């Protein structure tokens, strides 16, 4: 039976400095939730408060409806995988896995059964007699996950568990953790600063900045409908392009902006901002097209650098006003550095943010377009 977690106006203070500012969040049973945000945004602190490793300064933490603020970490039914793995270097893998069960007073036979079951699941049976120093990074990571699983907790917490692995292993472990979630079905919270990890693994992403939740939603919701310029810039790779603009006209059918001295029509994109308002226009690199006749013309740009990735090519370009615009195009498109090319946009896939960074554009035809 999976477990729900509710954060009700959670606050964290260190002395007089408040670092988490009244966070409200509901995590459904069995959900894989990812806390994502830049360094110092409070994601690890929030996770540690849920784990019971940090005291909660204000608000309530409820697990399955029960207030957990003052419940010791060991009694919250939580297991945690640490960024450093936190394996005991003087113990064998077997002992590392068995430590929690021995502490809980399980009988030897039961400990042995559970340890060997988990070792089998994580394919570390051959390493049970080894010490952590004799394991590779990936194997250590498996042991750390095994140590969490073996206690059969209600909730799993992962604090940037893949950040010490190389790129290839990170992808492999990402898949394994996702599979693990599917097979165990437990509620899991995963902290990362890597938005790709967040996008690929999460049922729900919580984007944090400066101790505040910026947006909560499914990965594609955040990608398609970022509530703020910060979320728009943080979610998606390559990053969204931002260009300063001015509202020329706007109504429920569409809008017209001035971008880099050029009038750009955005039919189907309603912008809730008055005429003359300074805004930021946003468009993802993969939503820009080079040449062609479809979409609206954004303007001509000069190609500064071309990155051929095989499947796609990334063009680093700049317009006449000096704004940088990255463009992700088909991998086979031949474009040369220094070449001047026209960029086109699908207005329904564009974003507009007001001076405070709030999204003010609504794609009136997006749903219909996607369905079609």
């Amino acid at each position, binding site marked *: 039976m999976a477990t729900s977690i509710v954060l009700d106006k959670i606050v964290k203070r260190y002395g007089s400095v408040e670092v988490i500012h009244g966070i409200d969040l509901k995590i459904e049973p069995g959900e894989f939730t990812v806390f994502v945000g830049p360094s110092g945004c409070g994601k690890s602190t929030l996770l540690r408060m849920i*784990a*019971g*490793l940090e005291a909660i300064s204000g608000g309530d933490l409820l697990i399955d409806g029960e207030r957990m603020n003052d419940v*010791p*970490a*060991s*009694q919250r039914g*939580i*297991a*945690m995988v*640490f*960024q*450093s793995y*936190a394996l*005991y*270097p*003087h113990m064998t893998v077997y002992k590392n896995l068995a*430590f*929690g069960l021995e*502490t*809980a007073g399980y009988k030897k036979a039961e400990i042995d059964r559970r340890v060997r079951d988990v070792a089998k699941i994580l394919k570390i049976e051959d390493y049970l007699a080894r010490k952590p*120093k004799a394991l590779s990074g990936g194997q250590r990571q498996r042991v750390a996950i095994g*140590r969490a699983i073996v*206690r059969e907790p209600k909730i799993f917490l992962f604090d940037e568990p893949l950040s010490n692995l190389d790129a290839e292993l990170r992808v492999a472990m990402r898949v394994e953790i996702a599979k693990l979630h599917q097979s165990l079905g437990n509620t899991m919270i995963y902290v990362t600063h890597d938005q790709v990890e967040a996008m690929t693994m999460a049922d729900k992403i919580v984007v944090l900045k400066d101790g505040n939740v910026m947006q909560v939603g499914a990965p594609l919701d955040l990608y398609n409908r970022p509530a703020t310029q910060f979320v728009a810039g943080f979610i998606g790779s390559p990053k969204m392009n931002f260009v300063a603009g001015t509202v020329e006209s706007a109504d429920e059918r569409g809008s017209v902006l001035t971008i880099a001295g050029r009038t750009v029509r955005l039919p189907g994109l309603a912008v809730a901002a008055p005429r003359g308002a300074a805004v930021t226009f946003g468009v993802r690199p993969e939503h820009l097209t080079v040449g062609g006749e479809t979409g609206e013309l954004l303007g001509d740009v000069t190609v500064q650098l071309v990155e051929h990735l095989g499947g796609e090519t990334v063009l680093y370009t700049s317009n006449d006003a000096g704004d940088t615009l990255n463009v992700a195009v088909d991998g086979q498109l031949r474009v040369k550095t220094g070449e001047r090319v026209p960029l086109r946009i699908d207005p329904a896939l564009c974003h507009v943010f007001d001076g405070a960074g709030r999204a003010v554009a609504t794609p009136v035809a997006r749903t219909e377009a996607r369905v079609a």
Partner: protein
Amino acid sequence: MTSQTSSVGAAVPAGGRSAPAGRTRRAFGQTTAGYLFLAPWLIGFFGLTLGPALASLWLSFTNYDLLQSPTFIGTANYVRIATADPKFAAAMKVTFLYVILSVPLKLVFALLVAMAFNRGIRGLPLYRAIFYLPSLLGTSVAIAVLWRQLFAADGLVNAALANFGIIGPSWISNPNYSLYTLVVLSVWQFGSPMIIFLAGLRQIPTDMYEAASLDGASRTRQFFKITLPLLTPVIFFNFVIQTIDAFKAFTPAFIISEGTGGPINSTLFYTLYLYQEAFGFFRMGYASALAWILVIIIAIFTAFSFLSARYWVHYDD
């Protein structure tokens, strides 16, 4: 300077055979400079350490009283030590008892203080310095004299006990207690191992304790299952150093017993006995033999410690 440069420069292309000679001269010059820089240490090592050590080894097989030339007597000194010297046995007993009592007590006390400091207290650098002071002063004559005053019949310890209606003995002149006052003095000099323990404790990652606390491990279990095993390299280091120091202890016993090792040989440390033989009775050959036996005892102990380390010291890498 110019002429030197030009002459070297001319020699290189002209003959071709002069180039290796020039390189050899340069190499020689560099080697000489290297040895000159090493000279202070080399003079110290050969003149003040290795030389006297070898000389004492030779003297240990001689009869030498400083006034007459040493006469070779073979292993007679060692035979006498092993078979006909009750004071040697007494000194060994006192020294071993001192080592066995003072080293573990000092290490445990140092570890406890280090753990208290490691919990994060305000003004830690100040406390650390204050607690380290006894280690700097502890082996000095002044502190030994102070200790004598503290534990004398009319000393401060008895004055304090008198407040509770206890009439204390003269701790230093009672053979039942005298050695223990020296043990207490040794434990009081816990600063040096404490600093090393503190550094070792700081090296243990916090997330290990966090992982253990999530597993429900109590502080006691965390101490025995995490802190202690991960601290074993530091414990080993402190244990070896402190034990060697304890075997070599001299000043406190010398001052407190006024050089006699009394009462009734109760503070006759091995080094004090060695000193008496050398500078009291001028039996330099015999004292040298005693010194070499101490070296061998310390060497055996150190070797045994290192051999045993593989079974109880946990190194991360």
